[in-house]
């Protein structure tokens, strides 16, 4: 099967191509689902792009799309489901929802925005099988999941017992393989565990009440583990003290704690709060952006807050319990999970007239605009925690259009306006930068060599947008989206469902750990370790995962 996309302006920052700037058009050729060098062979199908902007399919490296907490969110917020049913039509899954869309709706709405790969950033090991079953029902997207680690009692025990790094590495490798994960996520390092022992807060150097292990130790040990195991993605960190004013100091200390090793700070917006002003809540975006700029080992995604009703779901039960009183509507779920992690689900409405919410919005945008290197910052709302992913086109316009941004700012809570320097920031993102943020850079930080670009060999996941000065309009509708070379969206509407794959990482590790894992599961967890492990055939309705073999750097 050979396809030819004719006459598009190719925007492919990974390969240094910018057809939008140069005004040149060219064809893209696809053979059996991959992009190939141009030939003069006859194509089975040709699509005339008429100078439209062609980019690789979007990649979201942090969006909660599957797993037990999303189902708890669905259960709790039936209002969201009822208010946003999927539109009837040939590709209706009879589901719906906006903050927590059903699997089918997630795949379709993402595809309609030109996204073709999305990573679930908080898969709890105990729930991994369920998360994979759910991801298998998401059409049109390739997925993958980051395993939540660091709060589990096995790991805490290892550290408390002074286990060597090799032992930790073996454990991490075993867990990655057993749960079919792609990367390691740390959520509130050690804090979730400490909450089970009734600690209500946890700073970077505070000792766990039971194990006496500090978050710093959790973090540095796991950073070393993923480095030595050769996982492509660095530790994906949801740091300490999420949402707590004054957590800016923790965030800065966390960056310093890496001592130059790679670290990804996720939803940084929620970790950039100072305590200045009458309300003891202020923006530390400038300080933190400066630190990020100065430390090339750090990458971040923002977790932009978008106004409106959403629901927050996180493994960070400690923080979610703290925020429980702010729930709107007033209901929430919390759960301690299997000596492993936890979760907290709290519905939330971000209000533009609220000082705190408006300032959160501004802090997110400040981070976007003050972090200089577009290859180290990624466009996220931490869906659905800061807002649903369907708000991305609006967010892109906020980044690309200063007048629009300032007009929005002028409508917000007055006190918040006075507390942000956003109005003075002149920067506007270029289309190329947006393509880096949403395609090229995530592919690079995830180590996905055949994604996020349009060079020969790349997976033919392609989004075609008709250029429009109104960037929100432009990114709201795709002219065409191809998944593995198949046209799945035309003129903004799904025209075919494609089955995606699930990316997993497979590091080498010392398999002698298996014996200890068996004993742990038998005695402590009360489940056989072999039943905890997920077989390849359990993924994607039997199709199995797409495996990225990792070469460890440790001997």
């Amino acid at each position, binding site marked *: 099967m050979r396809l030819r996309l004719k006459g598009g302006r190719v925007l492919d920052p990974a390969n240094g191509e910018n057809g939008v700037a140069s005004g040149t058009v060219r064809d893209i050729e696809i053979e059996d689902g991959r992009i190939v060098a141009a030939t003069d062979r006859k194509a089975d199908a040709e699509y005339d792009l008429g100078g439209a902007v062609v980019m690789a399919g979007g990649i979201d490296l942090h969006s909660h799309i599957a797993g037990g907490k999303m189902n708890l969110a669905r259960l709790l917020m*039936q209002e969201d489901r009822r208010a946003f049913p999927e539109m009837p039509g040939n590709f209706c899954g009879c589901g719906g929802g906006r903050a927590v869309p059903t699997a089918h709706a997630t795949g379709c709405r993402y595809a309609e925005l030109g996204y073709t790969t999305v990573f679930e950033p908080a898969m709890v090991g105990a729930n991994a099988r369920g998360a994979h079953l759910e991801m298998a029902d998401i059409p049109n997207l390739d997925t993958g999941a980051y395993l939540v680690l660091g709060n589990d009692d096995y790991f805490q025990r290892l550290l408390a017992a002074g286990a060597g790094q090799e032992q930790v590495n073996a454990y991490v490798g075993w867990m990655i393989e057993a749960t079919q994960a792609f990367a390691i996520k740390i959520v509130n390092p050690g804090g979730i565990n400490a909450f089970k022992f009734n600690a209500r807060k946890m700073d970077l150097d505070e000792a766990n009440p039971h194990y006496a292990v500090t978050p710093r130790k959790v973090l540095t040990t796991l950073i070393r583990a993923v480095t030595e195991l050769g996982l492509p993605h660095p530790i994906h960190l949801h740091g300490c003290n999420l949402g707590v004013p004054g957590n800016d100091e923790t965030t800065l200390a966390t960056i310093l704690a890496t001592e130059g090793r790679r670290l990804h700070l996720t939803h940084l917006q929620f970790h950039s709060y100072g305590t200045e002003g009458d309300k003891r809540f202020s923006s530390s975006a400038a300080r933190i952006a400066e630190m990020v700029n100065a430390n090339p080992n750090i990458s971040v995604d923002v977790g932009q807050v978008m106004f409106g009703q959403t629901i927050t779901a996180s493994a960070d039960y400690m923080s979610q319990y703290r925020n429980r009183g702010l729930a709107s*509507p007033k209901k929430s779920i919390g759960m301690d999970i299997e000596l492993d992690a936890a979760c907290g689900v709290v519905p939330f409405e971000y209000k533009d007239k609220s000082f705190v919410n408006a300032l959160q919005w501004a802090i997110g945008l400040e981070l976007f605009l003050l972090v200089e290197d577009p290859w180290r910052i990624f466009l996220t709302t931490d869906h659905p925690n800061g807002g649903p992913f369907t708000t991305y086109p609006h967010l892109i316009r906020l980044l690309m259009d200063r007048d629009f941004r300032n007009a929005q700012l002028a409508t917000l809570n007055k006190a918040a306006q006075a507390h942000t320097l956003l109005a003075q920031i002149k920067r506007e993102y270029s289309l190329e930068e947006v393509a880096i943020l949403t395609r090229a850079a995530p592919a690079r930080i995830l180590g996905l060599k055949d994604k996020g670009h349009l060079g020969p060999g790349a997976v033919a996941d392609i989004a075609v947008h008709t250029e429009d000065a109104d960037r929100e309009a432009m990114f709201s509708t795709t002219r065409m989206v191809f998944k593995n070379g198949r046209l799945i969206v035309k003129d903004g509407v799904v025209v075919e469902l494609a089955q995606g794959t699930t990316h997993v990482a497979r590091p080498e590790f010392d398999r002698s750990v298996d014996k200890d894992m068996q004993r742990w599961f038998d005695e402590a967890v009360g489940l056989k370790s072999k039943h905890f492990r997920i077989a390849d055939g359990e993924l994607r309705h039997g199709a199995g995962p797409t495996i990225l073999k990792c070469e460890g750097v440790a001997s």
Partner: protein
Amino acid sequence: MTGVSLKPRAPFEARVDLSGLTPEVTGPLSLRELEHREVPCGGRSLKLAELFFVEGAPDGVLLVEIGDARLDGVGAGMTRGELIVDGTVGAFAGRGMSGGVLRIGGDAGDFLGSEMSGGRIELAGNAGAHAGAAGSGARRGLSGGVLQIGGHAGPRAAERQRGGLITIAGDAGEGLATGMIAGTVSVGGTIGPLAGRGMKRGTIFVNAVPELPAGFIDTGAHELVALRLIARRVPELSAMLSGWTHARRIVGDTLMGGQGEVLAGV
């Protein structure tokens, strides 16, 4: 005749859900558009004209001629206008309604006026279970408006009621006003066991003291000015309260720290 009338072509073979098909929605539509509007029926969705003869002139009034116990969601989500049913309706009549008037000539199924926040429902006959209550998963029952039941009400009427007024001319079933948060409910007839269980606030007017859960405390009979005020201000309660100067006041559910009350005329 003014308004649109829907006359069933035949008794329904499956449950039909009219939720959202309210006078303000039908008003702007032409008869033809109305006829083509799809409504869920059993496991399918059918055009309105396949189920009903659709006649009249669209405006603020909707008339359902000949009710059917399988006709669910009549007037659900109504915000204004008038909806009249000549006969009986199924479940969820007037659910989530916030304005307008819904008149039902016959009986109603379960969850009549559940989660209603305004407007008025006048039911001539008996209501099923959960009248004026919170539907599955909903946090609050009726929170405003008036729900008048001419006959009896089934179990768990007024469950989690949050405000507004429910009057039951006949008997009330078991678990009346369970978990009531606020509001007023009156019962002309007898009351089933466990009324007011877990009640936080709110008032239940009764003619005779029913059997109440353990957390209710009888404070004795009192001369209450509020009775005279309510009798005059609330026409729906005048007949019941106009003779009352004193009432037995039973407070509960104290087991849950509640401060609701059952007021029985003496």
